[in-house]
């Protein structure tokens, strides 16, 4: 393996990849009068490369990633399922890419129809009444959802003060609540990994605005008390927020809206297969019951006798949360996926996700320590407890898995499990792949006993070895900077650009 320098360490002054269209204007078109101090762009340091250099750079970089397209990626809570190629095709249709968000509605009827139908499908899957597709990701969905909770209570005269959140919740839940001006109160998780109605009730007072429940929760367990919790919450005038990031485990089986949810967000980049992009863009639609519909953010897609329209006529709306209406490109992908799967296919997706998780769990149980004996849904959580005597930790198992061509599970999350390994295979993986993964774990467990050092120094076959993350945080280097003297910079650039072989 050879190195690839930074963009800024390559190239040559004056080199350029792109040629621009000839200026077809009369030469006497004057540039506008502008204060000279305002028109001094600082472009120095930007890469100066040929097209081939850019292509080669990013082609090489791409190969240094694990990805669903190249590797089993059982990252718990992230639902790393196959991202269909036909969805990419759909998102790139000229009719989808070129449509401008500020055009008059009648010029974008296809896009609005797509959004309207997608909202309807999500409402059906979740059992809710109305949907906004605007939020950019799950966290923004939470912000929008809790904001609506607040607007609802404010409309009722009192915004209330707190949101109840279980200890096993994703970090975005408390962060989003705080962003809406709430204080978070933690609800403990039972020995069985579940939230119990008594624990909720004990914290329910007139100040509670909502309880946020992730269902199935981050241990992959269905919150069986959900209906009773919802009843208790509703009885105190509070609302039930469901974090639906794990909807992949529920579709066609149960609907949050039928079981007490007032508001819920769905991650299209998990359940509905839009590619995660190495960290987004995603889309986090929020679904609500009728009572909350007036508070949905603007704009809303509405159907009128004149076709579909974007409406901002919503006096109780929490307002606007983005420049435009949402990550339309991701909505196209999710729509294509749902249309392709159909109602039956969506239910089959869930069944097989759960089948795969249970199969993996069953086969891994003799090898690792399961965090919870409860039956799991789409994912299962193991710990490194059984390896304690070897000194091998979850981190080491995770790193060693990379050597076998498998991405690691989500590790050290949820926080309520010490040394957690959260494994979510998804429905698109084959039995053979699951078996190969089990075989790798089996070998790793054996290695832990025989040669723990091998694991503690893993990975061994990846492009870089274990990284010094402490150093990254202690002495943050967050961008490239030209070396002090230009002469030196050129020299060191040339050095780095020389490929070097590891033998």
């Amino acid at each position, binding site marked *: 393996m050879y190195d690839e320098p930074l963009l800024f360490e390559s190239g040559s002054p004056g080199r350029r*990849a792109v040629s621009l*269209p000839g200026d077809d*204007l009369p030469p006497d*078109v004057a540039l506008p009068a*502008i*204060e000279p101090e*305002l028109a001094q*762009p*600082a472009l120095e340091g*930007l890469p100066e*490369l040929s097209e081939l250099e*850019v292509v080669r750079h990013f082609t090489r970089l791409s190969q240094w990633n694990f990805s669903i397209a*190249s590797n089993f990626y059982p*990252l718990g809570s992230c639902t790393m*399922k*196959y991202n*269909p190629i036909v969805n990419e095709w*759909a998102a790139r249709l000229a*009719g989808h890419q*070129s*449509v*401008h*968000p500020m055009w008059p509605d009648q*010029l974008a009827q296809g896009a609005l129809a797509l959004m309207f139908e997608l909202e309807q499908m999500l409402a*059906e899957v979740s059992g809710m009444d109305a949907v906004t597709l605007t939020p*950019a*990701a799950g966290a923004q969905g939470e912000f929008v959802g809790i904001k609506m909770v607040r607007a609802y209570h404010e409309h009722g005269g009192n915004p209330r003060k707190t949101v109840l959140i279980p200890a096993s919740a994703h*970090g*975005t839940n*408390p962060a989003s609540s705080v962003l809406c001006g709430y204080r978070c109160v933690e609800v403990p998780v039972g020995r069985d990994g579940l939230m119990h109605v008594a624990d909720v009730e004990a914290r329910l007072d007139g100040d509670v605005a909502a309880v946020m429940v992730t269902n199935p929760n981050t241990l992959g367990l269905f919150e069986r008390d959900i*209906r009773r919790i919802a009843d208790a919450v509703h009885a105190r005038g509070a609302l039930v927020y469901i974090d639906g990031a794990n909807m992949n485990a529920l579709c*066609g*089986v149960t609907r949050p809206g*039928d079981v007490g949810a007032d508001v819920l967000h769905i991650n299209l980049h998990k359940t509905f297969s839009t590619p995660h*992009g*190495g*960290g*987004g*863009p995603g889309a986090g639609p929020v679904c609500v019951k009728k009572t909350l519909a007036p508070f949905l953010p603007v704009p809303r897609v509405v159907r009128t006798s004149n076709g579909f329209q974007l409406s901002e006529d919503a006096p109780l709306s929490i*307002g*606007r*949360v*983005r*420049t435009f209406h*949402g990550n339309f490109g991701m909505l196209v992908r999710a729509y*294509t996926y749902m*249309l392709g*799967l159909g109602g039956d*296919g969506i*239910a089959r997706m869930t069944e097989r996700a759960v*089948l795969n998780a249970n*199969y993996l769990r069953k086969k891994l149980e003799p090898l690792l320590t399961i965090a919870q004996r409860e039956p799991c849904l789409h994912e299962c959580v193991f710990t490194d407890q059984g390896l304690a005597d070897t000194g091998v930790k979850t981190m080491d198992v995770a790193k060693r898995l990379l050597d076998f061509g498998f991405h690691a599970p989500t590790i050290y999350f949820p926080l309520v499990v010490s040394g957690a390994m959260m494994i979510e295979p998804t*429905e698109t*993986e*084959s039995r053979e792949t699951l078996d190969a993964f089990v075989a790798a774990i089996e070998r790793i467990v054996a290695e832990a006993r025989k040669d723990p050092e091998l694991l503690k120094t893993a990975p061994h076959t990846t492009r*870089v*070895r274990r990284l*010094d993350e402490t150093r990254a945080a202690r002495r943050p280097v*967050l*961008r490239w900077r030209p070396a002090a003297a230009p002469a030196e910079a050129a020299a060191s650039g040339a050095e780095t650009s020389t490929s070097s072989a590891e033998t």
Partner: protein
Amino acid sequence: MDYTPHTEADIQAMLAEIGVARVADLFAHLPEDVRLGRGLDIAPGLSEPDLRARLAALASRNRAELLSFVGAGAYAHFVPSAVDALASRSEFATAYTPYQPEVSQGTLQAIFEFQTITSILLGTELANASMYDGASAAAEAVLMALRLKAARGRDDRGGKVVVARSLHPNVRQTIATYLSSMDGVRLVEAGYDPGGRVQLDDAAAGNGDSAGEVACVVVGYPNFFGVVEDLRAVSAWAQAHGALLVTVTLEPLALGWLTPPGALGADIAVGEGQGLGLAPSFGGPGVGLFGTRESFLRAMPGRVVGETVDADGKRGFCLTLSTREQHIRREKATSNICTNHSLCALAFTVCVSLLGPNGLRDLARLNVRKLRYAAAQLAGAGLGERFSGPTFNECVLRGADVPARWERLVRRGIVAGLPLGRWYPELEDAVLVCVTDQHRRADIDRLATEWRSAGTA
């Protein structure tokens, strides 16, 4: 479509291994009363050919072929073919957030490069790994300014936020939404002058107001009218009031012509990257740019990638400083953001790499000149510039009967800009026209001709 690999034999073997008889048994522990008990009311699935036919038909109902002069926060520029070819490589597109750096160096190095390019263009000491979009980045910048102000201990989280009326209305609305639950924070709007630039005076600071001191002032750069704010003056005003300067650049290509906001005093410079490398795509996804000072690092929202070394001392990159973030700090995080817009940041990075400094400058100048030519032609059609300030590739034009003429043009297949009356009643007779490298001279001439004839029709 069916993307699951399970054959009947697979399913039986797996169930046997698990020790249950049917798939339904895997859900047996769900209480009876939470079961749906019926199929989803969603049409049966489609095969790929049928699916493609359906999507193509839907897409064709968007009038992508029209001649459009709308910018207003979403810009159609030349995007080299290499951008999508590279950014769409499946190893980039189908990876998760790079939690395991050893097998994510591709994404990580690309983000580090994005952070560098973004800080160069914004003129800031550093930049994060991306935000959702321009408006939410602006809102997060305001929250950060409020946090910094609180940290300086001048008054708790309260304070005033001065927002220019010349800032994109959608950005103003987004900021308002994000601030609406914050106790003691007041939004103040500052008007604009005949140049189309923000008018900052004592009134703007809401002096004597009980909400306390000004935390920050937020302006567009260029602003919604396409006008280049004089950041020197804005910055001086902000300093005089002990406030931070937040700039919002929704047209990133303008930074190929303009002095970077960071170099003119912006404390937090945010923006939208869509114009460089991404299609308008009905408004998303784009990518939020976020740059600021090194000294503000720990208050910054969002992810960052940092350089480090591996066990052999070899350079590598990893996510870092996550003690600011929700997954570590939970309710004390600087933001709730988790998934950001990484792949769009990559497209932006590829695009800027292809353009390089010279391409960026030339493309920017081409835009400036196209608008100048258009303004001259449209003057002949009775449309005059409403503001005197310097503009990049958008300007506000006014004339007789503008809304009605604009409607007529739409019917003739031209979206001749964005009528402004909806957001600015005082600009009822005005339209915001955007002209870019994508418009040939003939397109501009046609626009002028049609405006003229629409007036007489």
